[in-house]
């Protein structure tokens, strides 16, 4: 075939593939906004559900998701960052550290419903936390741990080696070097990973299904040992379990969840680009 024509065809196919990737995102967003925007109001965002969840607001679900995400981050970020520091700065490249890295990669591939079952077995039953915000947060925390560790490792590894050499050559200890010459420069990257993990924790349903999520609660949770409603599960409930919920309420709930996750991702992108601009080496 004429090389110019084959080139044109190749370009056309590649362009089509790219557009096909964008298409679902645009369509999903358009449908959700079109069908759900009419439900969004002050009352919808900041009041309790009424009349069997067919009216009123989704405040308990929004708050529940915020609590769960916050809990997951409080648990997973310190643990994940410390593990990443150990892996990058201290461990030498031996069989043990390779095994740990392999385990982390695999942890990222575990289906989220398996995390849910794990959380049920460990936190709800074995530790006796019951179905509670604590159990749900810990389960979500374990789920986002690989994201946090991987992005923290990448952030630490992207700090130029000579920062460490210079710091050590000036008589700083290894820990001082990590604390003052490496971590400050890796922080934006670590934060980016944290926000990505946050977005993932906010959107997942399966891990909270058995560990925390309540079908309907007449009052807001009072402590970390209370059950809570959460946006993804609430969406599932009003879409499939309760008949007669107005369409715009369902799509409105989806819109709120989507907006929350998009805002978190946007924050990650802004942070990352600011970091790149500030980079001077």
């Amino acid at each position, binding site marked *: 075939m004429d090389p110019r024509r084959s080139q044109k065809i190749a370009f056309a196919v590649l362009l089509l593939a790219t557009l096909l990737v964008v298409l679902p995102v645009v369509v999903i967003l358009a449908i959700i906004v079109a069908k759900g925007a009419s439900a969004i109001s002050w009352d919808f965002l900041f009041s309790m559900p009424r009349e069997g969840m067919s009216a009123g607001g989704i405040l308990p679900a929004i708050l529940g998701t915020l609590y769960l995400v916050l809990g997951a981050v409080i648990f997973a970020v310190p643990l994940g960052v410390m593990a990443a520091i150990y892996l990058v700065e201290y461990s*030498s*490249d031996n069989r043990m550290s390779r095994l740990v890295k392999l385990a982390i990669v695999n942890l990222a591939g575990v289906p989220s419903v398996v995390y849910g079952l794990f959380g049920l077995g460990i936190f709800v039953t074995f530790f006796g936390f019951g179905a509670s915000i604590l159990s749900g947060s810990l389960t979500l925390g374990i789920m986002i741990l690989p994201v946090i560790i991987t992005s923290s490792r990448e952030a630490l590894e992207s700090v130029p080696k*000579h*920062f*460490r*050499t*210079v*710091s*050590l*050559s*000036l*008589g*700083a*200890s290894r820990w*001082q070097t990590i604390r*003052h*010459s490496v971590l400050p*420069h890796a922080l934006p990257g670590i934060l980016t990973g944290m926000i990505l993990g946050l977005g993932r924790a906010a959107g997942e349903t399966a891990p909270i299904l058995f560990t925390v999520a309540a079908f309907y609660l007449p009052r807001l949770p009072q402590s970390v040992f209370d059950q809570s409603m959460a946006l993804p599960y609430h969406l599932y409930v009003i879409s499939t379990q309760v008949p007669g919920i107005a369409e715009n309420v369902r799509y409105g709930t989806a819109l709120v969840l989507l907006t929350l996750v998009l805002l978190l991702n946007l924050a990650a992108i802004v942070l990352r680009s600011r970091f790149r601009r500030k980079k*001077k*080496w």
Partner: protein
Amino acid sequence: MVNPQHKFSVRNFNVHYDHFSALRNLNLEINANEIFTVIGPANSGKTTFLNSLNRLIDLVPASRCSGEILLDGIDIRAGMEVETLRRKVGIVFALPLPLPISIFENVVFGLRMQGVRDLRRLNQAVERSLRESYLWDEVKDRLSTPAMNLSGGQQQRLCTARILAGQPDVLLFDEPTSGLDPISTARIEETLLILKKKYTVVLVTNNVAQAARVGERTAFFLMGEMIEVSETGKMFTTPADTRTGDYITGKFG
């Protein structure tokens, strides 16, 4: 046994990287307040030798050292903490490597790591060490600006000031002018000649002429072995080994 004139005594010292022998059976003395220069072609072990003196060699996971190095008669491995050694024996690398912080913070980095908080002491250290490295007049009005904004030559003098702030005994220079223009190079060389009155200077250089200009004693390294060490003037006029003569006159290397 210990001669007070000897700052460093290197005895039967060897370095291996895995199975590659980088330095073999090195024996030499470096006197206090001299400029000791090390010359030799690439891969002759010059930088390995320099990094052995402040144990930066330890950062290479595959490296193994044997033999001993004494600083003022004390074994630098068995006799002192590595942090103490590195404060006493500062190094300026081939490339100017300021940290991505302000000029001021670069200079006081070592002091801060020692726990010095007193601002007056830090200020004094900054002025003293920047004057000693002949950078003060150029940067005194912009100490809080990023060190990365300085020119290459200025950065290299900043790196010198950075080690001077910790009041070291010995200054190691690893081809400090290899990335600089002739004028910046001349300034660094002038600085070295003044610094040696107060400090012991060990200068590794690719530039044979530089060794001849500033060195008092010179060692010639070749493929991990020290071929000879002598007064710089003597080495450049009547080298004991023909290989030294060949290298100096540019027949190889």
